[in-house]
């Protein structure tokens, strides 16, 4: 039996089993925990597909941050679970849904099996031009040099999503602090972890950001680590969530997009096109954009998890 195929086969069986369990289990809290586990197994699948950057991102954001977000929501929604559960559709609708789901899966499987051979790929074009960017990691080069407009738009989309979340607060709480006030237990376990882990987390985040130029890593993964450390400190009660009307908070949110846009527009007179880098200045400019974006991503992701303001700014 082919050993790598056995490993891949076992992983696929595990992933599908956890996914089916997440759909089928009765308790919503258990389903959320199942989804976090599913995210981590999916990160392993990404490693097997030789996409290490995607594996890091999936483990951090898909498994970690989404898990935290959904656990907080599941705990809040627990009282309404049984009330809504009576709306479960009957057997006929379930059978129809199964047929539809099966058809969609089968159609996708047919598409996968009829992928063209040899596979079309842009790897030769990337390899041919990557020397001009000064980077060693092809994925970072694609994100910040060859398809930089996509990354710029994504940074802006994150800010829009946060504004949309903030807009859900009641009018009287606009500009207040998001999330509840977490009680600090000075000698408790969570406070101990919140004092021990953030310095280490910040060092690892800076390392992941710096090494992302040549090895798997980059600003998304680093920003997620920073956001997680900040969230840990807030949830242990060591620090409180800042009011969303604070000036420094809003500046931190938009810094990434503003720097990205500024360098982009500066490329028009200096290098001939929007987001073109002048020859020889590629790597320094990319690092500046990445550093500013990492900060903005960290603040944005943490605030997205905390949610809309729930307390007035004075509390």
């Amino acid at each position, binding site marked *: 039996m082919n050993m790598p195929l056995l490993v891949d086969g076992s992983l696929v069986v595990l992933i599908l089993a956890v996914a089916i369990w997440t*759909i089928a289990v009765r308790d919503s809290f258990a389903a959320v925990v199942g989804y976090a586990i599913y995210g981590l197994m999916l990160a392993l699948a990404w490693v097997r597909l030789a996409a290490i950057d*995607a594996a890091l991102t999936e483990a951090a954001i898909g498994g970690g941050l989404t898990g935290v977000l959904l656990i907080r929501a599941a705990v809040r929604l627990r009282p309404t679970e049984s*009330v809504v559960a009576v709306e479960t559709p009957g057997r006929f609708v379930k059978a129809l849904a199964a047929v539809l789901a099966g058809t969609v899966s089968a159609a*996708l*499987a047919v598409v*996968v099996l009829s992928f063209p051979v040899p596979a079309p790929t842009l*790897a030769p074009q990337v390899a041919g031009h990557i020397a001009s960017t000064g980077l060693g990691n*092809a994925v970072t080069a694609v994100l910040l040099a060859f*398809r930089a407009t*996509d990354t710029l738009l994504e940074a802006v989309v994150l800010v829009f999503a946060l504004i949309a979340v903030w807009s859900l607060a009641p009018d009287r709480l606009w500009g207040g602090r998001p999330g509840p006030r977490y009680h600090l237990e000075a000698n408790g376990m969570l406070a101990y972890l919140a004092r021990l882990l953030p310095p280490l987390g910040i060092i690892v985040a800076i390392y992941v950001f710096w090494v992302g130029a040549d090895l798997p890593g980059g600003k998304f993964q680093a920003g997620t680590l920073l956001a997680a450390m900040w969230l840990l400190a807030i949830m242990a009660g060591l620090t409180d969530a800042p009011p969303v009307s604070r000036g420094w908070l809003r500046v931190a949110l938009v810094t990434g997009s503003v720097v990205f846009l500024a360098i982009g527009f500066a490329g028009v007179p200096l290098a001939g096109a929007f987001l073109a880098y002048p020859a020889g200045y590629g790597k320094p400019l990319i690092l500046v954009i990445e550093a500013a974006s990492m900060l903005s991503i960290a603040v944005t992701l943490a605030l997205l998890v905390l949610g809309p303001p729930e307390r007035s700014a004075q509390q």
Partner: protein
Amino acid sequence: MNASMLYGMCGSALVGIGLYGLIVNPQPLRKILSFNLIGSGVFLLFGVIARRGAALGMGGDPVPQALVITGIVVAFSATALAVALLLRLQEASGSATLSSPEPADPPDA
């Protein structure tokens, strides 16, 4: 069947599982979970396309990988917005149901 095809089958199955969960589960939080399953299944298909484009010493075609990374981050922000909407719905109307209220009881604003 080699490894990439196996993960391609896995991605297709995940989209189907997520679609079934989206239709059958009445709780909105479970629907959000199922939607995330569909999304990650699609990303896995992207990963298979990237792996099949391996060439010149790179493990995979970097362009689909970069698209997936962008996609994971944007999917998280969409999930966060959906969860915030759901919690606000629960605060405003007292229950997290997607079915319309009966005509006799007007919902509280």
